[in-house]
């Protein structure tokens, strides 16, 4: 079908207008909203696809371990409550038989038997605590960290029952009198909420390594498990490692080199 020059110009003009308006609308619609525009990651924040930790137990002696524990608990205002019923711990020591009850061969190497192992939240890839939390106060971040939102925690302690590692502690009482030296940069917790290690999410956001890793002199290795070239992957490639109760299917992400 022939069209006249006039007809052609009219159609071309109309489609240009439609195209410009439509394009403009699309830009408006797809542009980041007001909220996203205002909130940004800090420059230099450490990000990963799957954070994980490797504990080199050959390097991790008791002095180093205690230094890690001290650093973590000081930075995060973890109270020092002696009563084991009320104690709060983010990172702690446990003998081999308690740390790895599924590794109890009849004759265990003596150096393992005597050693204390440093334990913390395993930041499971399939975290049972997240499944049971009724308020989504605990959830798995995209980078694998199992995070806590104290504002939402109602203190039901389902997560404590679900966690097979004892990584969670409940605040039975006001913790402030039991904090020796308050870190003014970090909040304390109220009576009635559960708390645990969160791989120092607040430090990663600032571009810092977790507190325990920083003071461990290389006994703790932290990195991105999804990155083939990362240090954690390098170590796991070359050395034999075990995890705590992997048969439970929680897929813990703290590896122990024994």
């Amino acid at each position: 079908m022939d069209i006249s020059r006039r007809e052609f110009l009219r159609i071309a003009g109309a489609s240009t207008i439609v195209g410009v308006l439509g394009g403009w609308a699309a830009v408006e619609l797809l542009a980041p909203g007001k909220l996203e525009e205002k909130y940004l990651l800090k420059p230099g924040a450490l990000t990963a696809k799957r954070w994980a930790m490797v504990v080199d137990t050959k390097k991790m002696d008791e002095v180093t371990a205690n230094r890690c524990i001290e650093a973590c608990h000081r930075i995060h205002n973890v109270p020092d409550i002696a009563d084991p019923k009320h104690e709060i711990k983010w990172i702690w020591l446990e003998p081999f038989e308690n740390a790895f009850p599924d590794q109890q061969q009849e004759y265990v190497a003596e150096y393992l038997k005597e050693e204390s192992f440093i334990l913390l939240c395993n930041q499971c890839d399939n975290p049972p605590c997240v499944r049971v939390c009724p308020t989504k106060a605990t959830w798995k971040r995209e980078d694998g960290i199992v995070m806590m939102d104290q504002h939402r925690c109602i203190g039901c302690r389902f997560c404590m029952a679900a966690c097979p590692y004892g990584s969670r502690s409940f605040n039975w009482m006001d913790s402030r009198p039991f904090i020796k030296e308050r870190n003014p940069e970090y909040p304390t917790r109220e009576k009635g909420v559960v708390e645990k290690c969160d791989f120092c999410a607040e430090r990663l956001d600032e571009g810092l390594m977790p507190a325990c890793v920083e003071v461990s002199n290389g006994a703790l290795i932290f990195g991105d498990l999804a990155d083939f070239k990362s240090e954690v992957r390098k170590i796991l490639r070359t050395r034999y490692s075990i995890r705590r109760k992997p048969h439970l299917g929680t897929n813990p992400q703290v590896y122990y080199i024994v």
Partner: protein
Amino acid sequence: MPDEKKEVIDCLRQTNFFKPKKIYDRGKVIIGIIILFAFLTLPLFYNMGMGKAGNVPEPKIDTPVIQKLPEKERVCVEPKRYMRENHMKLLDNWRDQVVRFGNRSYKGYTKKYTISLQNTCLKCHSNYDNFCDKCHRYTQTKPYCWSCHVDKPKEWAGKELEGEK
């Protein structure tokens, strides 16, 4: 139907239904109503004149940190008006963005800020009694931010908690 209606109206008319009623003890009743009205509105007048609500609070911003700033930089993350009306919403968003998404940088209307109640807001506004608590008392709001987010429990949270209970 209309006939029935008419009958009813006639009936009512016969029983003086439409005639204005007489108020017995009219004077006393009117005085009573006035007294009742005065009694009911007393709290409003009381607060307008001399009560708590009469003293509209003026939060103070004369903390040492703010005073050290040059005149030009004495601004909050958003304009004053916005902060007065919406600081609670802003803090709520800050909380969610930090805890849920790890976004710790906020583009304010003049510059970027680190998102933190403890390390940003309260560094400048270190006068709890004359800043936060002043309006919160006036509006009878009791936020419990301070029970975790402040480093001086005795001077801050302690005072508020004891005072309110």
